[in-house]
């Protein structure tokens, strides 16, 4: 549905994105993930036909965003960052304007606008001037203007930023409900959001894509082994030895903790839980077991390792199965 190839955008001497390529299948919800300034908004602005790329190609629903821009615009709904809306207009009038401009026929327009407001839970404020609405309502009006013409593709730039937790949950539910008949690409830097809402994820950092694929796959590739954090008060060499001798343990790293106690990270194959054995070992040796927990193998960890640690794909990662991890 969305196909991006070797997209590059320069703002004067600054390169905002370099050589970005990805594709999104119809009906999929894709999370576009990256720290601030990574190039998320730039990519979305190019996809939404707001500005042309410096080079490269992008197609939406088979139409080129630059040469067949009108056909693309007809098929997308876009919510820019910070949701700019006309603060002087009333909600219903505004949505009617958007529907008209996007070519919804005069006779269906009223019904469509009413239906959209219903769906976005803004019917109760339809006669209010947009400037007087709260942030949560504005965000929903923004989403409503994107879906009012029932476009095939939705491009949402940070749709939950600045909302309170309850509103975030509502917006997320709304986006999830849109999946299926719409292809959604949404950018965010809230990581749990991606795991909750999206099927797959594209991680971008400093203008380049560093990882992409379905979330489980990505996590598996980054953490091919299960990890357990242990803190044992015992003589370090023998503790390490003992841990390494547990059947199934692949590797043991030392990991100094804040209170000066020696900590260890124990790696074992996925699906093999070694925590019981670690406890047995400690009990047997009469070592004091201070901490024993599974280390997170979440998208968050992957993201932090990629973005903060500037790490790229671990060598062990298989380079097949639809998951690409690029340098």
């Amino acid at each position, binding site marked *: 549905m969305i196909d991006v190839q070797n997209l590059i955008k320069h703002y004067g001497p600054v390169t905002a994105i370099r050589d970005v390529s990805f594709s999104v299948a119809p009906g999929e919800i894709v999370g576009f993930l990256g720290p601030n300034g990574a190039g998320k908004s730039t990519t979305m602005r190019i996809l939404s036909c707001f500005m042309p790329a410096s080079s490269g190609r992008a197609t939406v629903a088979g139409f080129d965003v630059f040469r067949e821009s009108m056909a693309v615009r007809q098929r997308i709904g876009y919510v820019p960052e910070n949701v700019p809306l006309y603060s002087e207009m009333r909600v219903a009038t505004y949505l009617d*304007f958007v529907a008209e401009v996007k070519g919804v026929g005069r006779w269906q327009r009223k019904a469509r606008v009413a239906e959209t407001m219903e769906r976005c839970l803004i019917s109760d404020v339809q006669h209010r001037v947009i400037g007087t609405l709260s942030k949560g309502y504005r965000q929903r009006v923004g989403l409503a203007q994107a879906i009012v013409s029932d476009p095939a593709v939705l491009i949402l730039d940070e749709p939950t930023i600045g909302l309170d937790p309850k509103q975030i949950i509502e917006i997320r539910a709304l986006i999830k409900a849109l999946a299926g008949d719409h292809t959604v690409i949404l950018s965010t830097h809230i990581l749990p959001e991606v795991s909750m809402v999206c099927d797959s994820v594209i991680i971008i950092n400093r203008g380049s894509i560093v990882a992409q694929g379905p979330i489980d796959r990505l996590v598996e590739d980054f953490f091919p082994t299960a990890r357990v954090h242990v803190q044992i008060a015992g003589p370090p060499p023998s503790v390490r030895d003992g841990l390494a001798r547990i059947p199934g343990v692949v590797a043991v790293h030392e990991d100094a903790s804040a209170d000066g106690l020696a900590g260890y990270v124990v790696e074992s194959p996925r699906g093999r839980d070694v925590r019981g054995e670690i406890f047995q070992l400690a009990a047997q040796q009469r070592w004091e077991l201070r901490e024993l927990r599974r280390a997170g193998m979440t998208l968050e960890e992957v993201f932090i390792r990629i973005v903060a640690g500037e790490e790229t794909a671990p060598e062990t990662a298989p380079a097949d199965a639809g998951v690409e991890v690029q340098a």
Partner: protein
Amino acid sequence: MRIWPIVKKEMRIYFTSPVAWVIITMFLVIAGYFFYNIFAFYTLASMQSAMNPQMGRDLNVTDSVLRPLFSNVSVILLLLMPLITMRLFAEERRSGTIELLLTYPVRDGAVLVGKYLAALAVYVIMLALTLLYPAIVFYFVRLEWGPLLTGYLGLLLMGATFLAVGIFASSLTENQIVASITTFGVLLILWVIGWSAEYVGGTWGRVLSHLSLLDHFDTFARGVLDTKDVIYYVDVTIVALFLTLRSLEARRWKG
């Protein structure tokens, strides 16, 4: 071309915010004040000439009421028109709504024409309300319809030019005040540029005089319909709108 929805949207914004109301009201108050003074003076002169028939020879409604009224109104327009156009693009840019507007399936040209027509509509409403003044005059004296018509046509064309310059200035900045001051400055210079024509003389003098907004308007106010003047206003309007389109395009590339 989906121009109509844009026109409607702009009109709604003009009239849900106080902008259009304030501009129209102020315009009518000031124009009304000028009209009152001009008409009162004319009444006084008529009464005096009733006693002195020599004086009455030179007295007529077109020259003593309409012409000064039109030239006064054109000065008010010079001050007020930049305020009509200043928000058209500047405000969209400042609030970021331009990012949505320019990703809807409408061409930049349609957006521009829609916004321009909306501003023109506000101006036409403003101008139509001043028809009350000639109506009052008509109640008392016989009017010459020709000069009245050309005068209004002149105001319409000149106003259309002001709006086109204003919309161009608005597309260059995201600050409404900068847009309106720039418009005012450009219009004022074009207004007075003819003054120096006399000292410069020769070909350049004629060029300067031809550029002057004021010189072209005067013929309309006198009741003369000259294609040269019509073409001047239409030309400036088209050039300004064309430049606006290019400026929108350039902004897109710059991002």
